[in-house]
Structure formats: C-alpha cells, structure tokens
C-alpha cells in the first residue's frame, strides 16, 4: 500500500488524565483547617492563634503562646458527592471515602524575643472516587492527592505587642489518578507521581489594643511540586501499542495564600475572629505531563483566585477550662462552571462550625466539627467531564491534644481559659 492516510492512532488519548484529587473543602484541594480549635472557629484565627498550630495559620502567633508547647491530632474528613446528569437520568453518587489528616506542631521560646517552631501537617489533598462505570468515567474514576508538609518557623518579637514569623515549607506529595479511556479504546489509564516542592511563609501579629484587639496577616508562597512518576495505560489490547505507558514528569503549583484577620474581645469571656483569605488558585491554570516516549499531555484547568471569609467565636464558659466555639465560613470556589470536573467537583461553600475545648493544667483538648455545605454547581460545557450538576455535603471532625508548659509572656488577647 502507499501513502494514503486512513488512520493513525497515537498517544494523545490520555490527555484527560486527571491530575488532582480532592473534594472536601476550602476551595480547590486546600484543606485549610488543621486543628480542633481552629476547625471549631471556622479557622478565623490568623489574629488569635497562639497554639502550636499557629505555625500554619500565622507563624508570628507562637511568640504569644506558652514557652514550650506541642500538639498533635487528626482531622477526619468525608464527603458525599452526587452528580445529576444534564437532561435527566439517574443520579450518581461517589464512593464515600474516609480520610485522616494528621497534624503535629511544636514551638519553643529560645529567648525572650526569639521563638522556634515546627509543624508537620497535610493541608493539600484528599480524593474522589466514582463508580467504575459511571457516566464520567473518562474524566475520572478515582483520584487522590496526598501531601505532607514540614514547616520550620522562626519568630521574632521586636516589641512586646508585635511579632514576625518566617517559615519554610517542604512539601512531599504523591498523586494517584485513575480514569476510564473513551470508547472504542476502552480500559483505563492510571497516573501516579511523587515529588517535592518548597515554599516560604511570613506572618505578622500585632496586639493593636492589648486584651481587646489584635490584627494578623500572613502570606504563604506558592509551591511548585515537581513530581516524577508513571502513566500506565491499560486499554483494549489492540490499542496498547498506540498508547504507550511510561515515565512522566509534571509540576503542580500550589497557590499563594494571603490571610488577614482581626480578633476582638468585647468582653473577657468572648473572643470574636474575622478572617479573609485570598487563595491564588490561578496558579492552577494548566498542567503539562512530559513523557519520555510520547507527546506531552497538556491539561487546561483555568481556575481563578478565590476569596474565603471566616468568622469565629470562642466563649470561655463559667465551667473552668471549658470553651465553646462556633464559626461560619463562606468559601468561593475557584472553579468556573465551564471547567468543572468530577475529580474536583468544587462549589461555593457555606460551612457551619462547632466545637469544644477543655484545658486542664498543661493539657488541652480541642474538638471541632464543620458541616460543609456545597452549593449546587453545574458543569456547563462538558469539556472536562459530563455536563450536569454536582451537589456535595462534607464533614470535618478534628481532635487535637495540646501540651503547654510555662507561662506566656503575653497573649494577643487575654486568654480567659489560661489556667
């Protein structure tokens, strides 16, 4: 035969390999809430956190905490996603997942003006899983992003009411995505990769009116995760030669996060916190999978920067050591309708938060719960998944044990629960 071209099947078919998982919270795949106390207060703590978890929320905060403190705990999360196809049809529910995100923080006062802290936590990740034969199987069947961050911090306190913290983030990540391949190719493709990314953070905490008003601001830099892994394509055997498996290299940029918060204590027993976050999800606009043996795969995500508003209240009850907390979050999704995809069926969220804290001598236990109500979000173009409406309901339950030793020099606000 000669040169007549009838068909040439080649490798770009896995272009829809999904990179990123997550469904449960905080817009995109950021899980902002990392401790029992913060979860209960809607994480409106940038201006008030002095516990070791301040390493994440505002590294300046550890300068106003106990001289020696550490905490450990976990955040349990789960979510139910439901997809309603456009034009009718049976609703599809995701496969429920249960995730435990551990956290551990510690801080130490080195001198009166220098504090050192470290945190280990997971704030990016989670996953989604849909039935293997669901209508959007070509977009995703199962996807998971797991991360672990190591975050050392140094905090200076040049003035008794002002502290500045600077931190370094080293993020280890692993990505595992499985999706169906379109007919007539059939079968599935799985992508897995792991790697490191590095970033920095800085925070300032100012006791504007001692015992009354504090102001905090934090910036966490974007982090580019550089990951190497493999794509394993398992189509019908007839297509195996045209769709080579092989090594892959990719980079995934986690967003810059700007946080601004005010903490106000109208009466000694009540602390109010109001925070605003800007999460620069526009960093997640495109992902390129570079392969050794085939053409690059380019995925356009087109996410946008998102605003999150938080309010929290902490009431020191008449029962000594017992605090009751509540919070409310409005979280604007970074995912436009036209690029909504089932691996990240994100939506605007309204979160209701409740929790308790109890402190006995040097031991403090905090329990927080968030009900995460995703507003219905409709995928309108079918570009990255089937057209239809996603509805999601998620839950966070966080428990943190904190061990604190020594008296803080001064807290941002007078802490009524301090023993």
């Amino acid at each position, binding site marked *: *035969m*000669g*040169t*007549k*071209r*009838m*068909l*040439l*099947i080649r490798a*770009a*078919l896995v*272009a829809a390999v999904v990179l990123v998982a997550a469904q449960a919270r905080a817009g995109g795949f950021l899980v902002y809430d990392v401790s029992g106390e913060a979860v209960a207060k809607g994480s409106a703590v940038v201006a008030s956190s002095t516990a070791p978890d301040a390493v994440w929320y505002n590294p300046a905060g550890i300068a106003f905490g106990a*001289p*020696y403190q*550490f905490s*450990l705990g976990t955040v349990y999360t789960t979510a139910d996603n439901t997809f309603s196809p456009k034009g009718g049809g049976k609703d599809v529910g995701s496969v429920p997942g249960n995730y435990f995100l*551990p956290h*551990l923080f*510690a801080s*130490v006062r080195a001198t009166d003006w220098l504090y050192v802290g470290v945190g*280990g936590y*997971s704030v990016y*990740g989670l996953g989604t899983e849909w039935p293997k034969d669901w209508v959007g199987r070509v977009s995703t069947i199962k996807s998971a992003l*797991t*991360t*672990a961050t*190591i975050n050392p911090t140094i905090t200076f306190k040049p003035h008794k009411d002002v502290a500045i913290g600077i931190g370094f983030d080293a993020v*280890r*990540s*692993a*990505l*595992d995505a499985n999706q169906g391949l*379109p*007919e*007539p*190719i059939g079968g599935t493709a*799985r*992508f*897995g*990769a*792991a790697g490191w990314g590095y970033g920095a953070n800085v925070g300032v905490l100012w006791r504007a009116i001692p015992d009354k008003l504090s102001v905090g601001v934090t910036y966490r830099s974007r982090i580019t995760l550089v990951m190497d*892994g*493999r*794509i*394993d*394509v*398992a189509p*019908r*055997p*007839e*297509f*195996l*030669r*045209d769709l*080579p*498996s092989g090594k892959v290299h990719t980079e995934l940029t986690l967003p810059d996060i700007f946080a601004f918060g005010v903490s106000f204590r109208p009466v000694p027993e009540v602390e109010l916190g109001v925070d605003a976050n800007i999460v620069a999800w526009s960093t997640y606009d495109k992902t390129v999978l570079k392969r050794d043996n085939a053409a690059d795969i380019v995925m356009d995500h087109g996410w946008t920067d998102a605003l999150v508003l938080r309010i929290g209240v902490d009431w020191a009850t008449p029962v000594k050591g017992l605090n009751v907390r509540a919070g409310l979050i409005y979280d604007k999704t970074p995912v436009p309708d036209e690029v909504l995809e089932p691996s990240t069926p994100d939506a605007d969220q309204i979160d209701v938060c409740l929790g308790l804290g109890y402190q006995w001598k*040097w031991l403090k236990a905090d329990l927080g719960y968030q009900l995460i109500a995703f507003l219905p979000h409709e995928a309108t173009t079918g570009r990255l998944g089937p057209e239809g409406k996603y509805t999601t309901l998620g839950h966070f339950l966080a428990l943190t044990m904190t*061990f604190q*030793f*020594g008296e803080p020099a001064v807290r941002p606000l007078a802490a009524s629960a301090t023993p």
Partner: protein
Amino acid sequence: MDGQRASRSRIRPIAGGLLLLWIGGALALAGCMPDIGTQTVPEAMEFDPGTGRVPQPTVLVINPATGKIDMSLAGVTVPADCLAQTAMPVAQCEFYQYLQSLDGFPTTAGAIAPATAALIPASLKATNVVVVDIARQKTFPDLAFGVDEATKNLTIDPTAGWDVGALYVGAVRGYANGVKAVGPVEAVDGIEVVASSVMFLLKEETSLMCGAATAADIPASCPYMTLLTQQMPDAEARASLVSLEAVRQGLGALGAFGAMTDLGGMPKAEQAVLWAFPTHSASVIELDPTKGLLPKVNGTREIRLKVKGEVDPATVTAWSLDAPGTVFLLDLTALANDDLGGGLPAFSVAVADGALVLTADADLPDGHTIATLVTTGVKNPAGVALVAPPITVLLKSRGPLVDAQGHSQVPSDVSDGDAAQLEGGRADFATLLDDELFASLTGLARADLAYVYGFNFPNP
C-alpha cells in the same frame, strides 16, 4: 524555674520523638510513589495503509469503477509510456502496467501479512493462518508459511498457486490461542499477537461514521470522531473515517468475517488481521520455477504447458511461416546460428488434460534452448484472452531487471537475487523480440505475448 526546667527536659525528647514519628509516617503515607503497574505490550498484526504495512495482495487496490487493479489507490502513479519517463525503472513501470491490466492478482502471487515483530514459525499452523475461498465456500488447502525476519512479514505461499477468478479472505489468528511473536528471552512461549487498532475498528459492528452518510455529517460526538480528532485535524479525521468505513462495509458485504468464522473456524474476536483479495478471472499458463510451475517435457518431441482455467481449443493453433497461429515453438540455439529452418521446428498443438500440448514433427535437439511462446490469441470459452504470469512479464520486459549494482529494477515485487537470475533470459528474449526480421516474420509484439519461456531441452 526548676519546674519549668523539668518540664522543658521532659518535653523536648517527647516532642522530638513525636515529630520524627509524624514526619516519618507522613512521608511514608503521603510521599510514596504510587505503585503504578506496567502493561505487557503485545505485538500486533499490522494494518496501516498510511505506512503501507497492510496484508497483500489486497482488495483495497481494486478500483470499484473499473474492476481492475489501480496502483493509484496505493499511492503509485504509473506512467502511460514506460520508455518516456524516468520516475521509475522501465521494468518496474511495465510490471505496474501489467498489474493494472488485471481484474485480480496473479495466481502465483504469494501473500504477506506484516507484523510488528517476527512471528515464531512453530506457531504458524494451518489453524492459525487460514485462507477461505468465498465463492467456493471452502478453505484453501495448500499453503506454506514462512517468516521474513528482515521485514517481519508472515509469508503465505500457495504451493500450487491460487485459483483463477477466486475471491479469497485471509486471516491470522491472534490472542491467546493464535500465533506468537518472538520476544525477549524471558518470554519463553513468545509474545501474544493481537489486532492493530485499525483492524479493531474495521471489526466494529456499527458504522464508524455513526450512521452519517457523508463526512460532513459525522457528528462531533461520534466516538470514532472523538478518537481521531485528538490526533489529526477535523477534516482529516472525517476523511479517514469515510475511508475506514468503506473498507469496513466492503469486508462486511463480502461476508468476510463471517466466512472466516464459519468456514475457517476462526472467531472474529480471535482474528488479528483479516483481508481479502481477488485473483484475475482470465486463464493463465502459470510459470514459477520456485513452485515447479514449468513446461513439462515428455519424450523428445512433446512439451506440455499447464493452463489454469479453461481454454477454448479453437483458439489454440500452431504458428508457422505458412500459417499464423497463437502458439510458437522456437529453437533459439538454431536461430542464433542463423538456421531459420531449424529455428522454427514444425509442430502441432492441442488442448489435452488442461494443458497445451506442443508436439514437434521431429525430435527436438538435446542441449538446445527451446522457447515456447503463447499469444493472447488463446482465449477461454468466454472469449477472454490468456493473461501472462508475472515471470513472463519480466522476461519480456524492455528494461533490464537489475542495474549495474545488482539491484532489482522491480523492487516492488522482485528481489535482487530473483531479478539477477531472470535477467539473462530477459536479455535473450529481448534480442529475439527486438529483432526486426523476427518481428516481420511473426508479427509478434510484446503486448501480444501471454507466455514466454525458454529452457535447455529437455530440462525446463
């Protein structure tokens, strides 16, 4: 202060230990590379018209309008005047012209089925490589299989030649029960061979155009359209689907897959490649020394030329200077010695037992080169002239079969070695056919010849 110091001394190792534990655990859980498996990639029987790696011969180059082989369908433009062009060697050009004169492939043509790796000869069983005669509803029995290591082609040789006027469907069984390809040392039993992606599409039960009548009407949501538009422009994808659908429908109209299943015992799911090809309908005096298809000498005077297909005896007449006929018997040794009488021995010809039987009036001299020529004046009962076998076409070529470096000048179909072997005979016949006296005596032109062969009597 003492209490604080004591607390400090306790907390540091505890915190440090917990932190290390957390970091280690977190990295173990979150940082590990997912265990991504690796698929074993099978080899495939190829069917890629874009690269020419398709089984041959193939019905794909039969022009539906003319019913004849059309090399342009294979991307080859054949010049009308082979002597007035330089695009290809004269011999190649004439061979293409010959093919384009046929309504099917020569009966001595071997078949090939390209694969992505050389097949293991032991797996080439009669149950794994099957050719079915659609018209006669039976499998073709006499096949010899081989492997061309250089080209990775499976070769299928009809040991007694194909029948004339037949439509064959060939297939190779792949997958678990079929042929196996040579693989790495550790693959002791070889590697599984499957259908190519194109073949997979041709085996689909539904329209590759999703029911559309024209390329423009193919819906963008058609899965085959979606598949192709990921790798080629929209218009090209539509054109490809139209072409593929034509092939799919063509094979379907022939009942090719079903015939291979029912007659060949090879289920569609196990067919790694399937193709169809016709043989020419005209009768032919086959000539292929490798198959033993040669004139047969009986005694000192009789030469038999076996004919495949029917012959109208009335069209079979012996040529002489006095009586023009359709069959020639020449003593080239005598002619070379200017012995015209000895060079044109008197003979008679008849049709018996499916052969042209040439009987000389006197003994033919041992050691002389005896040539037999048959013209297109010999026809079958339907009035269709004999067609030449490929080797006759090569022997009467006006251009050399090898160049100065020994390369075949018909590289599409003839190896360097075969071309070199035939070149001597071709040169001899060229001397004869280009001789003006011979031409004036016989009135023969190359185009009139349906059979040419010379041999050292009595050993063809």
